[in-house]
């Protein structure tokens, strides 16, 4: 077939490619309470992370080649604003270094809601394709609850019993992918304040964070949450002045990767279960997906088909 002579760029889809590592290794999340617990708390955290980080590195290498691994760290500046980058970041980096760990990339959680001018969370919410329960033949799922996402069918709503009629017996909810018995989970994705302001839930932003680390987020085909280099030695006094994603190590491997691994305390287990339920129902940009598949095949690196399966964790005991 001959190449078309006439082309219109607005009529053709395009997807920007992003560089990819083999593994994106997350060294932790920082919330206000962690910061308030002082540097010793962070020190203990990094000491626990270290052996697992080394194990993840060892496991990521393939076929005798050097594996590209980048490390990242997420700071919550979305739910609570505390201290300032000038206070928090140097302490964080110092405690990581003390444990022999280097943070390549630093991200702000609010960047997962809106990065620059891109409403990332809203765009991802628009890509939710709900898992159909058996019997779905094309009608929109009637049980859709705005702002919630489940891994199965919810219990039918109990109607108020009418006079002379017995109340309907309780029906259990049902996990669609259950193996005989259900582990039903219903995740709140956001809530709207009285002023109409939408607050995204922690699991939803964490799902966006995973998609960013997997290099699967695009806005009109353009990459979003592109790392900005860190210039100078100091950090600003206001979180808003810190780029949503900062490259601290100029020689770091690419931020995004074929797979992710997060080393976090076990209190995050429920959140990360919810992340999996969300990731399993998001249709990511097909162009980005194809780029990952094509490049991993060229590198002879196996990448799981399903996006949720590209994500892994180490949960260590404790807070």
């Amino acid at each position: 077939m001959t190449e078309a002579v006439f082309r219109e760029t607005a009529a053709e889809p395009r997807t920007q490619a992003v560089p990819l590592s083999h593994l994106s290794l997350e060294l932790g999340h920082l919330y206000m309470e962690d910061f308030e617990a002082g540097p010793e708390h962070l020190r203990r955290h990094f000491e626990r992370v270290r052996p697992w980080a080394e194990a993840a590195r060892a496991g990521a290498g393939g076929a005798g080649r050097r594996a590209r691994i980048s490390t990242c760290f997420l700071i919550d500046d979305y739910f609570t604003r505390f201290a300032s980058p000038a206070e928090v970041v140097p302490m964080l980096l110092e405690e990581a270094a003390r444990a022999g760990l280097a943070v390549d990339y630093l991200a702000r959680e609010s960047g997962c809601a809106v990065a620059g001018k891109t409403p990332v969370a809203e765009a991802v919410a628009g890509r939710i394709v709900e898992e159909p329960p058996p019997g779905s033949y094309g009608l929109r799922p009637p049980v859709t609850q705005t702002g919630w996402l489940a891994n199965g069918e919810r219990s039918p709503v109990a109607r108020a019993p009418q006079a002379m009629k017995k109340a309907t017996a309780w029906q259990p909810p049902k996990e669609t992918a259950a193996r005989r018995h259900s582990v039903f989970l219903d995740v709140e994705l956001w809530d709207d304040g009285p002023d109409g302001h939408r607050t995204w839930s922690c699991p939803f932003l964490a799902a966006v964070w995973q998609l960013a680390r997997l290099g699967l987020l695009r806005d009109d085909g353009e990459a979003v949450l592109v790392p900005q280099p860190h210039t100078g030695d100091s950090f600003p006094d206001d979180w808003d002045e810190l780029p949503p994603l900062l490259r601290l190590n100029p020689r770091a491997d690419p931020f995004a990767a074929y797979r992710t691994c997060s080393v976090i305390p076990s209190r995050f287990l429920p959140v990360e279960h919810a992340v999996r339920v969300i990731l399993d129902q998001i249709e990511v940009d097909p162009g980005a997906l194809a780029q990952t598949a094509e490049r991993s095949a060229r590198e002879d690196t196996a990448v799981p088909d399903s996006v949720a399966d590209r994500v892994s964790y180490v949960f260590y005991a404790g807070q």
Partner: protein
Amino acid sequence: MTPGQESGSGETRPPVVLACGEVRTCLLPALQALDSRAAAQLLGLRADERVLLSERPNLYGRSPDTLTGVDCPLPSANGARIRAVGTVAARAALTEGRVLQSSAYFRVPAAGPDHRRPWGHYLVRPGTVEPFGKLPYEAVAQGLLNGGRHGELDVGLIADGLLTRLLRHPLLDQRPPLKSRPTRLRWVALPAEHGEGPSIERFTLAEDELRTVRLRVPAGTPAGDIAGLCDDLALHDWLLTTVVRILDGIRLGAAEPPARTRPRAGEDRPAVVAALRPAVDHLLHLWMPRARVAHGLAPLWEALEDRPGFTRQWRTLVQRIRDQLALHAIPHREAS
């Protein structure tokens, strides 16, 4: 993660043996045709994916694909019950800011596992519905064309859902410039014999507004391309249907109402002109077969041009409209 869950380049997927879809075509319910910017607003189904806009050879906009999850039996002509799970893709298109179409489609591989997989597996295969076990594709193709029973996969419902959503858009003033009826076109595509090109096996004008098309396409033809061809067929079939109806609805050559002695300016437009004018204003420039049909499928139009001769009929209709308008432009000297 066990190696079995991963698909490297080693896994061979069963070939696609069936594609199916349904197209809804209707006049945009707005007095004025939408310009490109408004079209992009109407068709912007997603915040992060742009509407494809094209200006050559005519104005055309197409929304990104959206997915609907399904898990239900496929219709089949021989009553076999084949459960299938996956996603149906749907998109909308607007031609010259005037004709709105919604199109839902999916493809089915020759075989699938006999159990449902995690949902993420289906989401990385958008627009694919996987059967449990082996697919009796001839029987299913016929079943899909005939329309299934309640509870079986209904791709028309998905096209309808998208169209309904778009028709409620605040950009539309709900004042269409002419009367018309929406049409439905349902299509299936089966693999062509090895080495054969694409062909239309049957194009049927079924009950009222339903058309069915049965195609053969070479292996590997993208379902989106086939849907694009069928959108194009549906658009032109709708144009023919609509213009035929307009001409049907007026009594050509009927005696003019008794001439008033002194008709006031502007009020003497005969009914024929009033009926034909919207067709001239809004429809006659839309005829452009194959404007965006994939290169490999374009020859299929030739079969329809040969018999029944879509463009031949269109030209005749257009000529009739022009003749009528020309006749009415001649002052009725005889009467005066």
